């Protein structure tokens, strides 16, 4: 070897190592301190959780002399937050006493043995009865035990531009009764209001979970009788393949993009479509109907970057109808976050005490209002101070009664990607509905490790 060769070899190894390694930090424990990890916004202007938790810390320390709360913020986007958290939960040296967990991954973390069942605490906690039943199941493991206390949720529906609908000759307030009425409205807008996206429906892999949840599942869960889960069979604990409901939902996606009722395909598959829709297109009146989440006004309130206080006069809200208008007539999907206690937490009792402080009626109301959340407590949902805090909040809170939670079991992230790929191939026209559905069935077998049941 020439003298340069070892140097070059070392460079190769260094570069390789850069792509391979990751690490986490360590910390000690103390019986009177409860360590709380939560997601800090990557936007330095946004301090909502920080302000709220600091206030809770003060309240807790005052009510419990001698006890301390240590806040451990993790500043990261969603996907990286999960990764960091999961690394911390692996070891007792790094596990905090209380963590903020997305319901999207809570079941995966339960299966990994990262979390502690809360049933012994919940049984003795009177406030637990105030939580609505669907929300209680959000953090339930496959063993029937509950692993987290939800601190709010979100719902989804149809946002429409009143001016666009008026120009198209559609009377407002508008409420489609089934998929056909929704598509017909979009077709009318396309014909009568050129230059406007008639119906925005998120699709494809670039959109990630927003394609699956706001796009596909809002369709899929509106098929059938509205109670059975069309994605996962709870009794046999298997994922459902080959269903007509799945193909019907894909057909809807195909129709939207084939008839050019949605955004231009290349824009729909742009990774930033979500931001563009709520930041630019909706405020400029460029979208007729948008199937989207309850959190949109977060971006439009004062000081939020895309200030648009007039939205409540310009936009209308309609719930997403079921396929044929069958009962219960409307459909919504919910996610949200929960407070959970790690299995390796040093002070689980104290951690639950802190949850109880955060979840008094007053404190949780304060939190929902601060973060544009949707209440999961019956007493807060009925509280006029909460209902009037923001336009639209009553509409989205009323959807909670007919909402669905995803089957967020360990295979879910992979299933979700497979759904996005199926959507993408019918959106671009690369595959027919039948072909895309059968590709999904194949991928599902791998993703779910063979735990699949075929149901027509």
């Amino acid at each position: 070897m020439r003298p340069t060769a070892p140097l070059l070899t070392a460079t190769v190894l260094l570069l390789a190592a850069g792509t391979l390694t990751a690490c986490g930090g360590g910390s000690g424990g103390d019986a009177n301190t409860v360590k709380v990890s939560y997601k800090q916004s990557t936007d330095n202007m946004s301090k909502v959780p920080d302000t709220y938790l600091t206030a809770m810390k003060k309240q807790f320390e005052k009510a419990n002399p001698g006890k301390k709360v240590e806040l451990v913020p993790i500043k990261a986007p969603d996907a990286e937050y999960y990764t960091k958290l999961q690394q911390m939960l692996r070891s007792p040296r790094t596990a905090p006493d209380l963590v903020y967990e997305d319901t999207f991954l809570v079941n995966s973390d339960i299966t990994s043995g990262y979390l502690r069942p809360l049933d012994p605490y919940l049984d003795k906690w009177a406030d637990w009865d105030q939580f609505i039943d669907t929300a209680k199941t959000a953090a339930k493991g496959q063993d029937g035990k509950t692993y987290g206390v939800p601190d709010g949720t979100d719902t989804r529906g149809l946002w429409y531009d009143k001016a666009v609908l008026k120009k198209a000759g559609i009377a407002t307030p508008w409420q489609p009764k089934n998929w056909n009425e929704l598509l017909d409205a979009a077709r009318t807008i396309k014909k009568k209001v050129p230059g406007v996206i008639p119906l925005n429906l998120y699709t494809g892999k670039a959109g990630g979970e927003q394609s699956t949840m706001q796009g596909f599942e809002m369709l899929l869960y509106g098929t059938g009788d509205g109670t059975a889960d069309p994605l996962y069979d709870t009794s046999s604990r298997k994922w459902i393949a080959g269903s007509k409901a799945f193909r019907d939902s894909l057909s809807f996606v195909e129709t939207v993009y084939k008839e050019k009722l949605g955004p231009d395909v290349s824009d729909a598959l742009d990774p930033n479509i979500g931001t563009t829709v709520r930041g630019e297109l909706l405020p400029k009146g460029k979208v007729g109907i948008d199937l989207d989440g309850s959190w949109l006004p977060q971006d439009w309130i004062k000081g939020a970057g895309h200030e648009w206080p007039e939205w409540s006069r310009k936009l209308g809200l309609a719930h997403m109808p079921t396929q044929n208008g069958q009962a219960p007539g409307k459909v919504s999907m919910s996610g949200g976050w929960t407070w959970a206690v790690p299995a390796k937490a040093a002070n689980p009792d104290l951690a639950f005490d802190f949850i109880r402080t955060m979840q008094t009626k007053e404190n949780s109301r304060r939190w929902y209002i601060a973060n544009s959340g949707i209440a999961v407590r019956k007493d807060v949902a009925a509280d006029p101070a909460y209902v009037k805090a923001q336009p639209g909040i009553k509409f989205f809170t009323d959807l909670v009664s007919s909402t669905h939670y995803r089957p967020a079991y360990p295979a879910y992230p992979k299933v979700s990607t497979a759904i996005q790929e199926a959507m993408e191939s019918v959106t671009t026209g690369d595959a027919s509905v039948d072909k895309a559905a059968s590709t999904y069935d194949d991928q599902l077998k791998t993703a779910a490790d063979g735990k699949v049941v075929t149901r027509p």
Partner: protein
Amino acid sequence: MLRALPLAPATIVMALFLAGPIAYCVYIAFTDLQLTGQASSSFVGFDNFRTAFHDAAFLNAVKLTLVFTFLSSIVGQNTLGLALAALMKRASKPVRTVTGAVVVTAWVLPEVVAGFLLYAFFRREGTLNAILDWLGLPSQNWLFTLPILAVSFANVWRGTAFSMLVYSAALDEIPAEITEAAEVDGANAWQRLWHVTLPMIRRSIGTNLMLNTLQTLSVFGLIWVMTRGGPSNHSQTLPLFMYEQAFQKSMIGYGTAVALLLLVVGSLFSVVYMRLLRSEP
């Protein structure tokens, strides 16, 4: 023996923080470790590698990685860098300063910032289409129709400065007398380049190609920001595929196995270039 002693701390640190994680990664590549959704992991032998070679998405990623590396590193950054260095040698001082500043700015920009800039350049309402419109040429969504070309161009834009600097240094090393002698002998510019300049900077070409290639193989942020590997995986290179497996689908074991395969690809390139360095003409 005593003279080697001062090296000991560095060696220990290297072993601990470099060799340690690499060895651990090699181990993980042979397990079915997941980030979440699994109670315990187990040793699975070569399963992850077998899965990879039967995975159409993996093979697609390998193909795209090679296309991306060939277009942006070997053809783009390397040739353009040499051309720029040669032109700048003859240019006047102000031209040289301005050109150098512009090219180097592209290089020192953080990858993600460069990604956003080029996203703004290529997107439907972007600068490129505005220019094409102005020229009366048809515009299109480049990130949708030609994603791998768009990201390759982005990498050329970003990485050319490095080659330019390497070649500028190399060209300065060539004694003026040799070029002059060739000129006197009647060699034209092309012949001077082919018979004098290139052979004399051969070693620099090798080193530059290798460093460029390795850097290009691991490009992630640029592509992630511009296309997220889409549409329909048409720009999903190996690092993006690896990220998707490890962190979006939580399959750390499989993702690490893919990382090792990427390492193999990098080593193959390096071996080729090292041979290029070694053989005398």
